[in-house]
C-alpha cells in the first residue's frame, strides 16, 4: 500500500468544503479527479445528517459517510445550551461539531478533523467559536487549504498541482464573496469607489491567504527535500 493511502485522519466535512473540494479538479494519471475524491483515498470522510440535507441538492454523495449521533441532544445541551431541534443558525457546522466531538470522545478516534470553509461560522464571536477554540486542543480545525497542504505533505500532490489547487480554491471562494458588492453596485446601493474598495478588501483577504499557504508549502518543501533518500 502506498504511504499516502494510509487513512491517517478522520475528517468531518462541512457543506462548503465538500463543494469547494468537489469543484477543484486535478489531473492524476491522465484522469481528472476532484480533490474530494483524492482526499477520500487518504482520509475517512464523514458528516452529519444536517449537512447531508444541504449537500444532497447540490452534489453527489456517498451515503456511508452520513453519520447520526444517537446522543446528539445531550451534546447539543452541553455544547450549545440548546435543544438539538432548535439549532437554526450554523446548523450544519454545529451538528458536524457534535459528530466530531462524539467521534473523538466516544469512538476514541484520534486525529479527528473538523473541516469547514465557513469563516463566518468559525470566526464570529458566538458559542460555536467558543467551543471550537476550547476543543481545538483535541480536534484539528482545518479549511480546504489545509487539505491541499496535507495532500502535498503526503506526496499525493506535486508542488505545481498544489499551488494551482490553492489558486483555484481562492478563485472559487472569492467568487461568491464578490457577488455581494456586485449586487449592491448593480442596485445602486454603492458607488464605483465603494465597490472597488470592497472588492479590494476581499482580494486583500485572499492575498493574505495565498501568502500564508505559499509559505507553508515552501516550508514543507524544505523538509521533504531534506528527507529525500
Amino acid at each position, binding site marked *: 500500500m502506498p504511504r499516502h493511502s494510509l487513512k491517517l485522519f478522520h475528517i468531518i466535512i462541512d457543506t462548503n468544503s465538500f463543494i469547494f473540494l468537489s469543484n477543484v479538479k486535478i489531473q492524476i494519471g491522465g484522469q481528472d479527479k476532484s480533490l474530494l475524491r483524492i482526499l477520500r483515498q487518504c482520509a475517512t470522510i464523514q458528516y452529519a445528517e444536517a449537512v447531508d440535507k444541504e449537500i444532497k441538492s447540490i452534489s453527489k454523495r456517498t451515503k456511508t459517510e452520513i453519520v447520526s449521533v444517537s446522543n446528539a441532544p445531550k451534546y447539543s445541551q452541553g455544547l450549545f445550551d440548546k435543544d438539538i431541534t432548535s439549532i437554526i443558525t450554523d446548523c450544519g457546522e454545529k451538528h458536524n461539531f457534535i459528530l466530531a466531538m462524539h467521534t473523538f470522545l466516544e469512538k476514541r478516534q484520534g486525529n479527528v478533523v473538523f473541516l469547514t470553509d465557513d469563516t463566518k461560522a468559525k470566526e464570529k464571536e458566538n458559542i460555536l467559536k467558543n467551543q471550537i477554540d476550547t476543543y481545538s486542543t483535541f480536534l484539528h480545525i482545518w479549511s480546504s487549504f489545509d487539505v491541499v497542504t496535507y495532500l502535498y505533505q503526503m506526496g499525493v500532490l506535486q508542488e505545481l498541482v498544489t499551488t494551482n489547487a490553492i489558486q483555484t480554491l481562492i*478563485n*472559487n471562494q*472569492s467568487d461568491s464573496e*464578490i457577488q455581494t458588492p456586485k449586487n449592491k453596485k448593480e442596485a445602486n446601493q454603492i458607488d464605483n469607489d465603494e465597490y472597488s*474598495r470592497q472588492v479590494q478588501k476581499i482580494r486583500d483577504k*485572499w*492575498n493574505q491567504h495565498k*501568502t500564508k499557504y*505559499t509559505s507553508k508549502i515552501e516550508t514543507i518543501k524544505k523538509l521533504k527535500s531534506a528527507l529525500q533518500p
Partner: protein
Amino acid sequence: MNLLKYNLKSNPFQFVTPTQGSDLVWAGMPSVKKQLMDIYTQAYQQESKKLVLNWGAWGGGKTYAAFYFAKNRIGVPDENLLHIYIQAPKTGEAAVQELVRSIITKVGSNQWYSMVQEAITKVGQEEFKRIITERTDEIIADTIVRLFTGVFSMEIVNQYITRGLTNPKLDKMHLSSNLKSEQNFIDFLSGLLVAITIGNEKRVFIWIDEMEEMSLFAGKQFRLFNLMLRDLTDKVNERIIVFMNFTFSETDMNSLRTMFSDALWSRITDRIRYSDLDIEDAKMYCKDLLKDALIDASKSSAITDDLIEQILSLLPPSMLIPREINKLFSKIITYAVNTNAEQIDKEVINAALATI
C-alpha cells in the same frame, strides 16, 4: 464652477479618475515621478528590456500615473512615443486573448497599418521579415506582411484577431491559419510590436492597469496568464516597456512576490512602490495641486497651509491617499462655491463637513 474669487482656474481636486489625455498635473510623490521619468528617458538612451511593476494600495495614484504619461512628458518627438493603456482582463477565461485584443484594438488597425508600412518602406520587406522572424517565427512575420500590406482591410484585421477569418478568406489572404492558442496570440502581438519599432526610434510604453484582477483567477488560468506575459516580455525587443499596475495593500515584498509566478517575477526589472502618504507627503500633494490651479501665482493659495493641514487631519492615516484627499477637498470647494462663500476658511470647512 466659478472659482475666480478663490484665485483658482478650476477645482484641482478631481473627484474621479480623470480621462486620458486631459491636462494632468503631477502632485506630490516626487520619488515615484522621478523613477517613472527615469524609465522613460532611459528607454531612449539605453536599449534594455523593462518590465515595471507599479504597486501600492488602492487609490494611491497608479492609474493617474498611467494617464499622466499618456502625454509626451520627456520632450522626444511625438512620433517616437507610443503609449498604450489597457485594463487587465477581469476573469481568467480567455484572459490572454482578451489582453492581446485589447492592446491591438486600442492602437487601431489603421495606425498599425501605417506604422508597419513605414517600417517596410525604411528597411525593405525582406529585412523586415527577417527581424520579426528572429523574435518570433517565419509564419508570424509572413502573416503581418500579408495583413498589413497590399490591399489593406481594417475589417479583415479586426476579424482575424477577434472571431478569426473563414477558410475562403484565409486562402484569399494566403494565411495558413487563424490565431488559436494563447501562444499564437502572444506571438502575433510580439511580432507586431517588434514590427513598428523597425527602422525608427520609436519606443512603445504599454500600461496594463488593474493587474490585481489575476490574483483571483483559477489556478490553470493564473499560470497561463503569467506564462504568456513572460513570453511576451521575452519575445519583444528592447524598445517595448511594459508597466503593470498592481493594487496591493500589504507592504511586504515577500507577500507581493507570491502574487506572481516565479517566471514572471524574475522578469520584473523595476518595482515602484506607491507608498501610503504621511501628513507631510499629503500636504505637498495638496500644495502642488493648488499651486498649479492658481490664476495669479503671486497671490496666496485659496486654502492656506494651516487649513490644508487641518483638513488632512480629518482623514484617518489609512485614508491619506490621493483619491480620498481629492474627495474631501473637492467637497469643501464645491460647498464654498454653492454657498457663495467669500473665502475658504475654517467656518466654511466645518459647515461643508457637516453636510457630508
